[in-house]
């Protein structure tokens, strides 16, 4: 059983006039993996907590399935949540932690036993059932936290930065595992993170938030390819997109030595966004710019260049065979279709 989730104009104000979440509207289809991503303090966790029922929206409606749940208590929403710090009950064994939610719902004992065993097997926790959370490693605790959510077989999973307390290697492993889990068990999942890699890799859709407002909602590739504004452009993608300030005159956009023909761009100040990965050694017919290299970071297959272009600090990722050296100037080009132009005042994309 799984359900869709819908937020309509949901606002949360902790103090009058200061919205932590500002008129947020989202639609998450049944079985979808949705990522809420943004820098810390952008309201993504508050949004999640409102879906969980741990916070009450100041206005707007939250729906799970076809039910408005604003006034429904967390226990009756049929959701399960994984907390950033796992929130395992320290005085209970792993088995009791997993069984707790079912017991609270007066599930028959043999049913509880069956479900706990199943989930423990699925997550490789069978050996740990008698231990207490204090005796587990970070990764094991994370699994128990996942297990506690899975065992309940809820309509919606809510995950609040579940991987942020793990080290890099374990985080990558768990990320893949989460994705596999969702592929096998497509339950509606809402996942909060500030990590844009998790956002890109895990989600069917991602919602980018900033200062309580939704910036863009779409499939990860779409958000990456067509960022709605400068903030999204800089936030999604690593290393972040280079933003050069420039000006548009009669369908011609220029920023320093970089010149691009783009008919239809209204005259005025603009920002030009160039993804580091889209930059490559110049060839004929491409708009080009000179890149002064300060630091070279070889990664094996590619080289990350830090330096200056059009009087702005910039980053470029080029093929390792280019063999650039620090201190030199490299002429880089870009496919005109890969250039993003934003209005300088509002920051929104000009298409």
């Amino acid at each position, binding site marked *: 059983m799984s359900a869709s989730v819908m937020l309509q104009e949901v606002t949360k104000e902790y103090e009058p006039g200061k919205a932590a979440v500002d008129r947020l509207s989202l639609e998450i289809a049944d079985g979808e993996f949705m990522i809420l991503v943004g820098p810390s303090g952008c309201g993504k966790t508050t949004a999640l907590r409102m879906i969980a029922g741990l916070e009450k929206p100041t206005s707007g409606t939250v729906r799970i399935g076809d039910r408005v749940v604003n006034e429904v208590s967390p226990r009756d929403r049929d*959701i399960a949540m994984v907390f950033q710090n796992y929130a395992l009950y320290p*005085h209970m064994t792993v088995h009791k932690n997993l069984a707790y939610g079912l017991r*609270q719902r007066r599930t028959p004992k043999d049913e509880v036993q069956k479900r706990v065993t199943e989930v423990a097997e699925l997550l490789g926790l069978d050996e740990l059932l008698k231990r207490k959370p204090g005796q587990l490693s970070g990764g094991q605790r994370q699994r128990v936290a996942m297990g506690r959510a899975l065992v309940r077989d809820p309509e919606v999973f809510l995950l609040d930065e579940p991987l942020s307390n793990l080290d890099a290697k374990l985080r990558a492993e768990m990320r893949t595992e989460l994705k596999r889990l969702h592929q096998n068990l497509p339950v509606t999942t809402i996942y909060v993170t500030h990590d844009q890699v998790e956002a890109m890799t895990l989600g069917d859709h991602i919602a980018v938030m900033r200062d309580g407002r939704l910036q863009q909602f779409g499939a990860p590739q779409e958000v990456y390819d067509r960022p709605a504004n400068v903030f999204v452009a800089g936030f999604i993608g690593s290393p972040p997109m280079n933003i050069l300030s420039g000006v548009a005159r009669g369908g011609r956009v220029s920023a320093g030595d970089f010149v691009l023909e783009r008919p239809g761009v209204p005259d005025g100040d603009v920002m030009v966004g160039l993804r580091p990965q889209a930059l490559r050694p110049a060839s004929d017919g491409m708009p080009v710019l000179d890149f002064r290299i300060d630091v070279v970071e070889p990664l094996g297959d590619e080289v990350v260049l830090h330096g200056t272009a059009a009087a702005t600090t910039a980053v470029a990722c080029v093929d390792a065979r280019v063999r650039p050296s620090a201190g030199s100037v490299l002429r880089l080009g870009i496919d005109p279709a890969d250039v993003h132009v934003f209005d300088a005042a509002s920051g929104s994309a000009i298409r």
Partner: protein
Amino acid sequence: MTTEPLLGVPPQQFRLDPPPEEPRRRRLPFSPWHLALMPIAAVMLLPLVWMVAVSLETDAQSHAFPPLLFPKSFQFENYKTAFNAVPFAHFFLNSLLYSLTTVAGNLLFCSLAAYAFARMRFRGSNILFVVFLATLMVPFQVLIIPTFLIVKHLGMVDSVGGLIVPNLCNAFGIFLLRQFFRTLPIELEEAARIDGTSRLGILFKIVLPLSLPALATLGIIQFMWSWNDFLWPLIIINSDTHAPLQLGLSMFQGAHAQHWNLLMAATVMSQLPMLIVFLFAQRWFVQSLAFSGMKQ
């Protein structure tokens, strides 16, 4: 990740040599603080030693001046005499009843109030809490008469109820537990809410099991307080039937004769339960007095 040997060399071999040891100074086998603490400890212990000494003296020796701290022979039969001179066992049971019920009452009622103050937001919750705290500053002597009047209206003068009911809950316990509850991660309670636990369920299944050190502290403090309480029983209890031990002890101070040795023997016996409680619970006690302040 960090434990992975780099280049096959176990990580500890990368460590620098330990810093060269300081030149050895001649050290006292104890901290210098002890020089100040030992005389204080002696002063604290003296009355206890004196109590035990007098309890083992003859009637004449116990009236001697200067007092005799180390009698040559021990009069152990004082204990037997003292035990039989008054209904000691009866008083002892009354004390036990008084102490245990007030401990139970405090653990239950203070937990409930403390949890509300720790986690529930309601209009005026902070003001109410401050009012509760303020009652800690009102000396008991001021409260005696109003409390007595209330108990009288309840028709509980000279009864076990009159002894116990006013002491079932107190602001100190609420404060102590509230401070402790607030140190517990709120996510545990939120997880329990999502798991379908009611407010009371959260208190009893999640919060209290994690608060054993604080509960133990409160229990011990309350036990000690009730066991040693003299003033309130003196006021509310008139008959031997309901008198706790501390009242019973005062029966040794007769109008005509003063049997110090018997009084002290009875006092020693009355203090044994406290000693036992303290021995068993010392670890909890020390640990949670440290807790009871603010957060670690």
